[in-house]
Protein backbone atom coordinates (compact mmCIF):
# COMPACT_ATOMS: atom_id res chain seq x y z
CA UNK A 1 0.00 0.00 0.00
CA UNK A 2 2.81 2.39 0.79
CA UNK A 3 4.58 1.90 -2.54
CA UNK A 4 3.58 4.41 -5.19
CA UNK A 5 2.71 3.01 -8.61
CA UNK A 6 6.15 3.80 -9.96
CA UNK A 7 8.17 3.04 -6.93
CA UNK A 8 11.21 1.01 -7.95
CA UNK A 9 11.37 -0.95 -4.72
CA UNK A 10 8.15 -2.70 -5.56
CA UNK A 11 9.18 -5.62 -7.74
CA UNK A 12 6.34 -6.50 -10.07
CA UNK A 13 5.83 -10.18 -10.79
CA UNK A 14 5.31 -10.95 -14.46
CA UNK A 15 4.15 -14.29 -15.82
CA UNK A 16 5.28 -15.21 -19.34
CA UNK A 17 3.15 -17.85 -21.10
CA UNK A 18 4.33 -19.40 -24.34
CA UNK A 19 4.59 -23.02 -25.45
CA UNK A 20 7.92 -22.37 -27.21
CA UNK A 21 11.00 -22.11 -25.01
CA UNK A 22 12.94 -19.74 -27.36
CA UNK A 23 10.02 -17.22 -27.26
CA UNK A 24 9.93 -17.34 -23.48
CA UNK A 25 13.67 -16.82 -23.29
CA UNK A 26 13.51 -13.82 -25.62
CA UNK A 27 10.84 -12.14 -23.48
CA UNK A 28 12.70 -12.99 -20.26
CA UNK A 29 15.86 -11.57 -21.73
CA UNK A 30 14.13 -8.32 -22.58
CA UNK A 31 12.48 -7.88 -19.18
CA UNK A 32 15.28 -9.14 -16.93
CA UNK A 33 17.29 -5.86 -16.97
CA UNK A 34 14.15 -3.95 -15.87
CA UNK A 35 14.22 -5.61 -12.47
CA UNK A 36 10.98 -7.55 -12.66
CA UNK A 37 10.42 -10.90 -11.01
CA UNK A 38 9.81 -13.30 -13.87
CA UNK A 39 7.97 -16.59 -14.03
CA UNK A 40 7.26 -18.78 -17.03
CA UNK A 41 4.59 -21.24 -18.05
CA UNK A 42 4.70 -23.52 -21.10
CA UNK A 43 0.95 -24.05 -21.41
CA UNK A 44 -2.39 -22.45 -20.63
CA UNK A 45 -3.07 -24.96 -17.92
CA UNK A 46 0.28 -24.39 -16.22
CA UNK A 47 -0.38 -20.65 -16.41
CA UNK A 48 -3.73 -20.99 -14.67
CA UNK A 49 -2.14 -23.13 -11.93
CA UNK A 50 0.45 -20.45 -11.23
CA UNK A 51 -2.20 -17.70 -11.28
CA UNK A 52 -4.30 -19.68 -8.81
CA UNK A 53 -1.37 -20.22 -6.45
CA UNK A 54 0.23 -16.82 -6.55
CA UNK A 55 -1.41 -14.26 -8.83
CA UNK A 56 1.18 -12.22 -10.78
CA UNK A 57 0.95 -8.46 -11.35
CA UNK A 58 0.84 -8.87 -15.13
CA UNK A 59 0.67 -11.66 -17.72
CA UNK A 60 2.30 -11.85 -21.13
CA UNK A 61 0.33 -14.42 -23.07
CA UNK A 62 0.91 -16.06 -26.43
CA UNK A 63 -2.29 -16.61 -28.42
CA UNK A 64 -1.43 -19.71 -30.39
CA UNK A 65 -0.69 -22.65 -28.12
CA UNK A 66 -1.60 -26.33 -28.28
CA UNK A 67 -4.36 -27.41 -25.90
CA UNK A 68 -5.78 -24.35 -24.21
CA UNK A 69 -5.18 -21.31 -26.42
CA UNK A 70 -4.58 -17.72 -25.32
CA UNK A 71 -8.24 -16.67 -25.59
CA UNK A 72 -9.35 -19.46 -23.32
CA UNK A 73 -6.72 -18.53 -20.76
CA UNK A 74 -7.87 -14.88 -20.88
CA UNK A 75 -11.48 -16.01 -20.47
CA UNK A 76 -10.67 -18.20 -17.47
CA UNK A 77 -8.70 -15.44 -15.73
CA UNK A 78 -11.24 -12.70 -16.44
CA UNK A 79 -14.15 -14.89 -15.32
CA UNK A 80 -12.65 -15.33 -11.89
CA UNK A 81 -13.40 -12.35 -9.62
CA UNK A 82 -10.19 -13.00 -7.71
CA UNK A 83 -7.97 -12.69 -10.79
CA UNK A 84 -9.96 -10.53 -13.20
CA UNK A 85 -7.98 -7.41 -12.39
CA UNK A 86 -4.63 -8.88 -13.46
CA UNK A 87 -3.68 -7.06 -16.67
CA UNK A 88 -2.96 -9.31 -19.68
CA UNK A 89 -0.92 -8.47 -22.77
CA UNK A 90 -1.64 -10.80 -25.67
CA UNK A 91 1.17 -11.59 -28.11
CA UNK A 92 -0.31 -11.88 -31.60
CA UNK A 93 0.98 -12.18 -35.11
CA UNK A 94 1.57 -8.87 -36.84
CA UNK A 95 -1.52 -7.47 -38.58
CA UNK A 96 -3.79 -10.19 -37.28
CA UNK A 97 -6.85 -8.00 -36.82
CA UNK A 98 -9.10 -10.94 -36.17
CA UNK A 99 -6.93 -12.19 -33.34
CA UNK A 100 -6.93 -8.72 -31.75
CA UNK A 101 -10.73 -8.50 -31.88
CA UNK A 102 -11.08 -11.93 -30.26
CA UNK A 103 -8.59 -11.04 -27.57
CA UNK A 104 -10.35 -7.75 -26.86
CA UNK A 105 -13.73 -9.36 -26.45
CA UNK A 106 -12.20 -12.01 -24.18
CA UNK A 107 -11.01 -9.15 -21.97
CA UNK A 108 -7.29 -8.73 -22.59
CA UNK A 109 -5.90 -5.30 -21.81
CA UNK A 110 -3.30 -4.85 -24.51
CA UNK A 111 -1.55 -6.41 -27.53
CA UNK A 112 1.94 -6.81 -28.82
CA UNK A 113 2.82 -7.96 -32.33
CA UNK A 114 5.55 -10.46 -33.07
CA UNK A 115 8.40 -9.93 -33.42
CA UNK A 116 8.27 -8.13 -30.11
CA UNK A 117 10.13 -4.85 -29.90
CA UNK A 118 12.05 -4.49 -26.64
CA UNK A 119 11.35 -0.79 -26.06
CA UNK A 120 7.66 -1.14 -26.86
CA UNK A 121 7.34 -4.17 -24.57
CA UNK A 122 8.88 -2.35 -21.63
CA UNK A 123 6.74 0.77 -22.08
CA UNK A 124 3.51 -1.20 -22.39
CA UNK A 125 4.34 -3.35 -19.37
CA UNK A 126 5.15 -0.31 -17.26
CA UNK A 127 2.03 1.59 -18.36
CA UNK A 128 -0.24 -1.31 -17.60
CA UNK A 129 1.35 -1.94 -14.21
CA UNK A 130 0.86 1.71 -13.31
CA UNK A 131 -2.75 1.66 -14.45
CA UNK A 132 -3.53 -1.46 -12.53
CA UNK A 133 -1.91 -0.16 -9.35
CA UNK A 134 -3.90 3.06 -9.66
CA UNK A 135 -7.03 0.97 -10.07
CA UNK A 136 -6.05 -0.99 -6.97
CA UNK A 137 -5.60 2.23 -5.02
CA UNK A 138 -8.98 3.49 -6.15
CA UNK A 139 -10.57 0.22 -5.19
CA UNK A 140 -8.97 0.15 -1.77
CA UNK A 141 -10.00 3.75 -1.22
CA UNK A 142 -13.56 2.82 -2.11
CA UNK A 143 -13.43 -0.05 0.38
CA UNK A 144 -12.01 2.28 3.00
CA UNK A 145 -14.77 4.77 2.41
CA UNK A 146 -17.39 2.06 2.61
CA UNK A 147 -15.97 0.75 5.87
CA UNK A 148 -15.72 4.19 7.42
CA UNK A 149 -19.32 4.83 6.40
CA UNK A 150 -20.23 1.57 8.13
CA UNK A 151 -18.34 2.65 11.21
CA UNK A 152 -20.14 5.96 11.23
CA UNK A 153 -23.50 4.19 11.01
CA UNK A 154 -22.45 1.93 13.83
CA UNK A 155 -21.36 4.90 15.95
CA UNK A 156 -24.68 6.63 15.24
CA UNK A 157 -26.56 3.51 16.22
CA UNK A 158 -24.58 3.09 19.43
CA UNK A 159 -25.14 6.73 20.32
CA UNK A 160 -28.88 6.48 19.90
CA UNK A 161 -29.01 3.22 21.82
CA UNK A 162 -27.08 4.86 24.61
CA UNK A 163 -29.36 7.87 24.70
CA UNK A 164 -32.47 5.69 24.78
CA UNK A 165 -30.98 3.61 27.54
CA UNK A 166 -30.06 6.70 29.54
CA UNK A 167 -33.55 8.15 29.14
CA UNK A 168 -35.14 4.89 30.22
CA UNK A 169 -32.92 4.41 33.28
CA UNK A 170 -33.34 8.06 34.23
CA UNK A 171 -37.12 7.73 34.07
CA UNK A 172 -37.18 4.44 35.97
CA UNK A 173 -34.90 5.75 38.69
CA UNK A 174 -36.99 8.88 39.02
CA UNK A 175 -40.38 7.22 38.87
CA UNK A 176 -39.89 3.96 40.68
CA UNK A 177 -37.27 4.81 43.26
CA UNK A 178 -38.05 8.49 43.58
CA UNK A 179 -41.78 8.13 44.09
CA UNK A 180 -41.48 5.23 46.52
CA UNK A 181 -38.96 7.20 48.58
CA UNK A 182 -41.22 10.22 48.54
CA UNK A 183 -44.11 8.15 49.85
CA UNK A 184 -41.81 6.68 52.49
CA UNK A 185 -40.83 10.13 53.58
CA UNK A 186 -44.44 11.26 53.80
CA UNK A 187 -45.24 8.31 56.03
CA UNK A 188 -42.30 9.14 58.26
CA UNK A 189 -43.57 12.71 58.54
CA UNK A 190 -46.99 11.37 59.45
CA UNK A 191 -45.47 9.12 62.13
CA UNK A 192 -43.32 11.92 63.44
CA UNK A 193 -46.38 14.07 64.00
CA UNK A 194 -47.88 11.34 66.21
CA UNK A 195 -44.84 10.70 68.36
CA UNK A 196 -44.44 11.97 71.90
CA UNK A 197 -42.64 15.31 71.64
CA UNK A 198 -39.40 14.12 73.11
CA UNK A 199 -37.82 10.78 73.34
CA UNK A 200 -35.69 8.32 71.48
CA UNK A 201 -38.40 7.24 69.03
CA UNK A 202 -38.85 10.76 67.70
CA UNK A 203 -35.11 11.15 67.30
CA UNK A 204 -34.91 7.90 65.40
CA UNK A 205 -37.72 8.85 63.06
CA UNK A 206 -36.13 12.22 62.39
CA UNK A 207 -32.79 10.72 61.48
CA UNK A 208 -34.53 8.16 59.26
CA UNK A 209 -36.31 11.01 57.54
CA UNK A 210 -33.01 12.78 56.99
CA UNK A 211 -31.59 9.62 55.51
CA UNK A 212 -34.59 9.33 53.18
CA UNK A 213 -34.00 12.95 52.21
CA UNK A 214 -30.41 12.40 51.23
CA UNK A 215 -31.36 9.27 49.26
CA UNK A 216 -34.01 11.29 47.42
CA UNK A 217 -31.38 13.90 46.57
CA UNK A 218 -29.02 11.22 45.25
CA UNK A 219 -31.74 9.60 43.17
CA UNK A 220 -32.64 12.98 41.72
CA UNK A 221 -29.03 13.80 40.96
CA UNK A 222 -28.45 10.44 39.26
CA UNK A 223 -31.61 10.77 37.22
CA UNK A 224 -30.71 14.31 36.12
CA UNK A 225 -27.15 13.39 35.24
CA UNK A 226 -28.40 10.58 33.04
CA UNK A 227 -30.86 12.83 31.28
CA UNK A 228 -32.40 16.02 32.63
CA UNK A 229 -36.19 15.83 32.53
CA UNK A 230 -36.26 19.46 31.42
CA UNK A 231 -35.18 18.26 27.96
CA UNK A 232 -38.79 17.12 27.55
CA UNK A 233 -39.74 20.81 27.55
CA UNK A 234 -37.49 21.46 24.57
CA UNK A 235 -33.93 22.41 23.78
CA UNK A 236 -34.29 26.06 24.79
CA UNK A 237 -35.57 25.13 28.25
CA UNK A 238 -32.80 22.58 28.71
CA UNK A 239 -30.11 25.04 27.59
CA UNK A 240 -31.45 27.68 29.93
CA UNK A 241 -31.43 25.29 32.86
CA UNK A 242 -27.97 23.93 32.04
CA UNK A 243 -26.52 27.43 31.86
CA UNK A 244 -27.84 28.30 35.31
CA UNK A 245 -26.49 25.09 36.69
CA UNK A 246 -23.13 25.66 34.98
CA UNK A 247 -22.93 29.23 36.21
CA UNK A 248 -23.56 28.17 39.78
CA UNK A 249 -21.06 25.31 39.59
CA UNK A 250 -18.22 27.03 37.72
CA UNK A 251 -18.64 30.66 38.71
CA UNK A 252 -18.34 31.61 35.03
CA UNK A 253 -20.72 34.46 34.25
CA UNK A 254 -22.98 33.53 31.32
CA UNK A 255 -25.17 35.53 28.97
CA UNK A 256 -27.88 33.42 27.36
CA UNK A 257 -29.98 34.34 24.36
CA UNK A 258 -32.73 31.96 23.37
CA UNK A 259 -33.90 33.56 20.16
CA UNK A 260 -35.99 30.65 19.01
CA UNK A 261 -38.42 28.26 20.60
CA UNK A 262 -38.23 26.03 17.55
CA UNK A 263 -39.39 22.57 18.54
CA UNK A 264 -37.23 19.80 17.11
CA UNK A 265 -37.45 16.02 17.39
CA UNK A 266 -36.25 14.46 20.65
CA UNK A 267 -33.11 12.92 19.14
CA UNK A 268 -32.15 16.27 17.65
CA UNK A 269 -32.60 18.27 20.82
CA UNK A 270 -30.74 15.55 22.72
CA UNK A 271 -27.82 15.70 20.28
CA UNK A 272 -27.60 19.49 20.46
CA UNK A 273 -27.88 19.33 24.23
CA UNK A 274 -25.05 16.81 24.52
CA UNK A 275 -22.85 18.96 22.27
CA UNK A 276 -23.69 21.87 24.52
CA UNK A 277 -22.81 19.94 27.69
CA UNK A 278 -19.53 18.76 26.21
CA UNK A 279 -18.66 22.34 25.27
CA UNK A 280 -19.43 23.61 28.77
CA UNK A 281 -17.33 20.82 30.24
CA UNK A 282 -14.42 21.88 28.02
CA UNK A 283 -14.83 25.48 29.10
CA UNK A 284 -14.84 24.53 32.77
CA UNK A 285 -11.86 22.20 32.42
CA UNK A 286 -9.56 23.96 30.01
CA UNK A 287 -10.59 27.49 29.13
CA UNK A 288 -9.86 29.42 32.34
CA UNK A 289 -12.66 31.71 31.20
CA UNK A 290 -14.51 34.24 33.32
CA UNK A 291 -17.40 34.76 30.94
CA UNK A 292 -19.34 32.87 28.33
CA UNK A 293 -22.09 33.67 25.88
CA UNK A 294 -24.69 31.24 24.63
CA UNK A 295 -26.96 31.95 21.66
CA UNK A 296 -29.66 29.63 20.34
CA UNK A 297 -30.98 30.91 17.07
CA UNK A 298 -32.80 29.91 13.92
CA UNK A 299 -30.96 31.00 10.81
CA UNK A 300 -32.38 30.12 7.42
CA UNK A 301 -33.20 26.40 7.68
CA UNK A 302 -30.79 25.77 10.51
CA UNK A 303 -31.00 25.58 14.24
CA UNK A 304 -27.76 27.13 15.47
CA UNK A 305 -26.21 26.99 18.90
CA UNK A 306 -23.21 29.19 19.54
CA UNK A 307 -21.07 29.07 22.67
CA UNK A 308 -18.28 31.56 23.13
CA UNK A 309 -15.89 32.03 26.02
CA UNK A 310 -13.25 34.61 26.84
CA UNK A 311 -10.74 32.00 28.01
CA UNK A 312 -7.21 31.27 26.93
CA UNK A 313 -8.22 29.48 23.76
CA UNK A 314 -6.17 26.68 22.31
CA UNK A 315 -4.03 25.86 19.37
CA UNK A 316 -6.22 23.60 17.28
CA UNK A 317 -3.26 21.79 15.77
CA UNK A 318 -1.92 20.68 19.15
CA UNK A 319 -4.48 19.18 21.44
CA UNK A 320 -4.53 16.20 23.72
CA UNK A 321 -6.02 12.96 22.51
CA UNK A 322 -8.85 13.00 25.04
CA UNK A 323 -9.80 16.52 24.06
CA UNK A 324 -9.68 15.82 20.35
CA UNK A 325 -11.79 12.70 20.89
CA UNK A 326 -14.32 14.83 22.72
CA UNK A 327 -14.41 17.28 19.83
CA UNK A 328 -14.69 14.41 17.38
CA UNK A 329 -17.66 13.08 19.34
CA UNK A 330 -19.36 16.48 19.12
CA UNK A 331 -18.74 16.68 15.40
CA UNK A 332 -20.07 13.18 14.87
CA UNK A 333 -23.26 13.93 16.76
CA UNK A 334 -23.98 16.86 14.48
CA UNK A 335 -22.84 15.04 11.34
CA UNK A 336 -25.29 12.20 12.00
CA UNK A 337 -28.12 14.74 11.73
CA UNK A 338 -26.66 16.41 8.64
CA UNK A 339 -25.25 19.32 10.63
CA UNK A 340 -21.84 20.48 11.69
CA UNK A 341 -19.75 21.74 14.58
CA UNK A 342 -17.25 24.51 13.90
CA UNK A 343 -14.66 25.51 16.42
CA UNK A 344 -12.70 28.67 16.11
CA UNK A 345 -10.00 29.33 18.62
CA UNK A 346 -6.47 30.56 18.98
CA UNK A 347 -4.18 30.82 21.96
CA UNK A 348 -5.23 33.80 24.05
CA UNK A 349 -8.28 34.55 21.94
CA UNK A 350 -11.05 32.54 23.59
CA UNK A 351 -13.02 29.83 21.85
CA UNK A 352 -16.21 29.90 19.80
CA UNK A 353 -18.11 26.68 19.16
CA UNK A 354 -20.90 26.84 16.61
CA UNK A 355 -23.11 23.80 16.21
CA UNK A 356 -25.96 23.58 13.76
CA UNK A 357 -28.41 21.04 12.46
CA UNK A 358 -30.83 21.41 9.57
CA UNK A 359 -34.49 21.88 10.41
CA UNK A 360 -37.39 21.31 8.04
Amino acid at each position, binding site marked *: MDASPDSPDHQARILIVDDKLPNRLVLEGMLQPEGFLLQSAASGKEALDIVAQQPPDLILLDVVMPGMDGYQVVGAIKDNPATKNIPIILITALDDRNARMLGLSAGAEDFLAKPVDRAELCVRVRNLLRLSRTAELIESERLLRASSEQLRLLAAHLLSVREEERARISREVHDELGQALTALKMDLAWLEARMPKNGEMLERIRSTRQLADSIIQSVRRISTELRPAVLDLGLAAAVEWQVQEFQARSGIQCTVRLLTREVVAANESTAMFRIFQETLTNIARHAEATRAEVVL*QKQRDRLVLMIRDNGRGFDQAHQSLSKSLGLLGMRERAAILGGRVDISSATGKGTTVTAWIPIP
Partner: protein
Amino acid sequence: MIRILIVDDHAIVRRGLRSLLSDEFQGATFGEAADAQQAMQQLRDHKWDVALLDITMPGKSGLELLKEVEVEWPKLPVLVLSGHAEDQFAVRVLKAGAGGYLTKESAPEELAKAIHKILAGGRYVSPALAEKLALSVNKDVTRTPHETLSDREYDVMSRIAAGKTVTEIAGELALSVKTISTYRTRVLEKLGVKNSAEIVQYAIRNDLVI
Protein backbone atom coordinates in the same frame (compact mmCIF):
# COMPACT_ATOMS: atom_id res chain seq x y z
CA MET B 1 -64.93 22.24 54.41
CA ILE B 2 -61.95 22.47 52.08
CA ARG B 3 -61.96 20.29 48.97
CA ILE B 4 -58.53 19.16 47.71
CA LEU B 5 -57.88 17.37 44.40
CA ILE B 6 -54.68 15.32 44.24
CA VAL B 7 -53.38 14.50 40.74
CA ASP B 8 -50.49 12.04 40.70
CA ASP B 9 -49.90 8.83 38.81
CA HIS B 10 -48.44 7.09 41.87
CA ALA B 11 -51.04 5.71 44.28
CA ILE B 12 -48.57 5.61 47.16
CA VAL B 13 -47.81 9.30 46.72
CA ARG B 14 -51.53 10.18 46.64
CA ARG B 15 -52.08 8.18 49.81
CA GLY B 16 -49.07 9.79 51.51
CA LEU B 17 -50.25 13.30 50.63
CA ARG B 18 -53.73 12.53 51.78
CA SER B 19 -52.66 11.32 55.19
CA LEU B 20 -50.33 14.27 55.67
CA LEU B 21 -52.93 16.80 54.65
CA SER B 22 -55.73 15.34 56.72
CA ASP B 23 -53.70 16.30 59.78
CA GLU B 24 -53.42 19.91 58.73
CA PHE B 25 -56.82 20.28 57.09
CA GLN B 26 -59.11 18.36 59.39
CA GLY B 27 -62.37 17.31 57.79
CA ALA B 28 -61.12 18.10 54.29
CA THR B 29 -62.63 16.30 51.32
CA PHE B 30 -60.12 14.63 48.99
CA GLY B 31 -60.36 13.63 45.39
CA GLU B 32 -57.78 11.71 43.43
CA ALA B 33 -56.82 11.45 39.78
CA ALA B 34 -54.06 9.31 38.29
CA ASP B 35 -53.69 11.15 35.01
CA ALA B 36 -54.69 14.28 33.11
CA GLN B 37 -57.87 12.74 31.77
CA GLN B 38 -59.14 11.68 35.19
CA ALA B 39 -58.18 15.09 36.51
CA MET B 40 -60.28 16.88 33.89
CA GLN B 41 -63.18 14.57 34.74
CA GLN B 42 -62.89 15.35 38.46
CA LEU B 43 -62.68 19.07 37.72
CA ARG B 44 -65.83 18.95 35.60
CA ASP B 45 -67.83 16.78 37.99
CA HIS B 46 -67.01 18.48 41.29
CA LYS B 47 -66.02 21.80 42.68
CA TRP B 48 -62.51 22.04 44.19
CA ASP B 49 -60.80 24.63 46.34
CA VAL B 50 -57.27 23.67 45.42
CA ALA B 51 -55.52 21.16 43.16
CA LEU B 52 -52.17 19.50 43.78
CA LEU B 53 -50.62 18.55 40.48
CA ASP B 54 -47.74 16.23 39.59
CA ILE B 55 -45.64 17.46 36.68
CA THR B 56 -44.51 14.19 35.08
CA MET B 57 -47.26 11.75 34.35
CA PRO B 58 -47.77 9.19 31.62
CA GLY B 59 -49.74 10.61 28.69
CA LYS B 60 -50.40 14.31 28.87
CA SER B 61 -47.85 16.03 31.11
CA GLY B 62 -48.77 18.04 34.17
CA LEU B 63 -47.53 21.18 32.47
CA GLU B 64 -49.98 20.73 29.59
CA LEU B 65 -52.76 19.91 32.02
CA LEU B 66 -51.89 23.03 33.99
CA LYS B 67 -52.26 25.18 30.88
CA GLU B 68 -55.70 23.71 30.19
CA VAL B 69 -56.81 24.15 33.77
CA GLU B 70 -55.72 27.79 33.62
CA VAL B 71 -57.97 28.31 30.63
CA GLU B 72 -61.06 26.53 31.97
CA TRP B 73 -60.79 27.20 35.70
CA PRO B 74 -58.62 30.30 35.93
CA LYS B 75 -59.60 30.91 39.54
CA LEU B 76 -58.64 27.49 40.83
CA PRO B 77 -55.38 27.67 42.84
CA VAL B 78 -52.96 24.99 41.64
CA LEU B 79 -49.93 23.86 43.58
CA VAL B 80 -47.49 21.91 41.44
CA LEU B 81 -45.74 19.11 43.27
CA SER B 82 -42.87 17.55 41.46
CA GLY B 83 -40.27 14.92 41.94
CA HIS B 84 -37.87 17.04 39.92
CA ALA B 85 -35.51 19.58 41.35
CA GLU B 86 -36.94 23.09 41.45
CA ASP B 87 -34.33 24.63 39.19
CA GLN B 88 -35.51 22.60 36.19
CA PHE B 89 -39.20 23.35 36.24
CA ALA B 90 -40.24 25.92 38.82
CA VAL B 91 -39.99 29.08 36.73
CA ARG B 92 -41.80 27.54 33.78
CA VAL B 93 -44.53 26.17 36.00
CA LEU B 94 -45.06 29.54 37.65
CA LYS B 95 -45.12 31.24 34.26
CA ALA B 96 -47.77 28.76 33.12
CA GLY B 97 -50.02 30.03 35.90
CA ALA B 98 -49.42 27.78 38.88
CA GLY B 99 -49.84 29.28 42.34
CA GLY B 100 -46.77 27.54 43.63
CA TYR B 101 -44.10 24.92 43.09
CA LEU B 102 -42.85 22.42 45.63
CA THR B 103 -40.78 19.30 45.45
CA LYS B 104 -42.70 16.30 46.70
CA GLU B 105 -40.50 15.51 49.62
CA SER B 106 -40.86 18.98 51.13
CA ALA B 107 -41.63 19.00 54.82
CA PRO B 108 -45.35 18.74 55.67
CA GLU B 109 -45.25 22.16 57.35
CA GLU B 110 -44.01 23.70 54.12
CA LEU B 111 -46.69 21.91 52.13
CA ALA B 112 -49.39 23.23 54.48
CA LYS B 113 -47.91 26.73 54.35
CA ALA B 114 -47.91 26.66 50.55
CA ILE B 115 -51.54 25.53 50.36
CA HIS B 116 -52.68 28.19 52.81
CA LYS B 117 -50.84 30.83 50.86
CA ILE B 118 -52.26 29.98 47.45
CA LEU B 119 -55.75 29.50 48.92
CA ALA B 120 -55.45 33.10 50.08
CA GLY B 121 -54.71 34.09 46.49
CA GLY B 122 -50.95 34.40 46.88
CA ARG B 123 -48.06 32.62 45.25
CA TYR B 124 -45.64 30.32 46.92
CA VAL B 125 -42.03 29.46 46.22
CA SER B 126 -39.70 27.73 48.65
CA PRO B 127 -37.10 29.86 50.42
CA ALA B 128 -34.37 27.94 48.59
CA LEU B 129 -35.90 28.72 45.21
CA ALA B 130 -36.53 32.35 46.12
CA GLU B 131 -32.85 32.71 46.92
CA LYS B 132 -31.87 31.07 43.66
CA LEU B 133 -34.16 33.37 41.67
CA ALA B 134 -32.67 36.39 43.38
CA LEU B 135 -29.16 35.21 42.56
CA SER B 136 -29.98 34.57 38.94
CA VAL B 137 -30.65 38.26 38.38
CA ASN B 138 -27.42 39.06 36.61
CA LYS B 139 -24.79 40.79 38.59
CA ASP B 140 -23.81 43.56 36.27
CA VAL B 141 -20.33 42.79 35.14
CA THR B 142 -18.71 44.85 32.42
CA ARG B 143 -20.20 43.69 29.20
CA THR B 144 -19.03 43.73 25.63
CA PRO B 145 -21.18 46.03 23.46
CA HIS B 146 -23.09 43.19 21.81
CA GLU B 147 -23.98 41.69 25.19
CA THR B 148 -25.96 44.84 25.92
CA LEU B 149 -28.22 44.18 22.92
CA SER B 150 -31.71 42.94 23.63
CA ASP B 151 -32.54 39.50 22.26
CA ARG B 152 -34.39 41.00 19.33
CA GLU B 153 -31.60 43.46 18.59
CA TYR B 154 -29.09 40.63 18.74
CA ASP B 155 -31.16 38.57 16.33
CA VAL B 156 -31.32 41.48 13.88
CA MET B 157 -27.58 42.15 14.31
CA SER B 158 -26.60 38.57 13.53
CA ARG B 159 -28.82 38.52 10.47
CA ILE B 160 -27.26 41.73 9.18
CA ALA B 161 -23.88 40.12 9.86
CA ALA B 162 -25.00 37.16 7.74
CA GLY B 163 -25.49 39.58 4.84
CA LYS B 164 -29.26 40.03 5.01
CA THR B 165 -30.99 43.27 4.07
CA VAL B 166 -33.48 44.97 6.35
CA THR B 167 -36.32 43.90 4.03
CA GLU B 168 -35.18 40.27 4.05
CA ILE B 169 -34.92 40.25 7.84
CA ALA B 170 -38.40 41.77 8.13
CA GLY B 171 -39.69 38.86 6.03
CA GLU B 172 -37.84 36.25 8.10
CA LEU B 173 -39.02 37.58 11.44
CA ALA B 174 -42.51 38.52 10.22
CA LEU B 175 -42.06 42.14 11.34
CA SER B 176 -42.38 45.42 9.44
CA VAL B 177 -39.43 46.95 7.64
CA LYS B 178 -39.85 50.00 9.84
CA THR B 179 -39.53 47.95 13.02
CA ILE B 180 -36.39 46.22 11.77
CA SER B 181 -34.93 49.59 10.81
CA THR B 182 -35.51 50.81 14.35
CA TYR B 183 -33.74 47.75 15.76
CA ARG B 184 -30.89 48.32 13.33
CA THR B 185 -30.52 51.92 14.49
CA ARG B 186 -30.30 50.77 18.12
CA VAL B 187 -27.76 48.11 17.19
CA LEU B 188 -25.64 50.78 15.48
CA GLU B 189 -25.83 52.95 18.59
CA LYS B 190 -25.02 50.19 21.05
CA LEU B 191 -22.15 48.75 19.03
CA GLY B 192 -20.84 52.24 18.31
CA VAL B 193 -20.65 51.71 14.56
CA LYS B 194 -21.86 53.76 11.61
CA ASN B 195 -23.43 51.39 9.11
CA SER B 196 -24.29 47.78 8.24
CA ALA B 197 -20.84 47.15 6.81
CA GLU B 198 -19.34 48.04 10.19
CA ILE B 199 -21.84 45.73 11.88
CA VAL B 200 -20.51 42.94 9.69
CA GLN B 201 -16.94 43.86 10.61
CA TYR B 202 -17.83 43.95 14.30
CA ALA B 203 -19.46 40.55 14.04
CA ILE B 204 -16.48 39.04 12.26
CA ARG B 205 -14.04 40.54 14.75
CA ASN B 206 -16.04 39.11 17.64
CA ASP B 207 -16.71 35.76 16.06
CA LEU B 208 -20.47 36.30 15.95
CA VAL B 209 -21.02 35.32 12.35
CA ILE B 210 -22.91 32.09 11.96
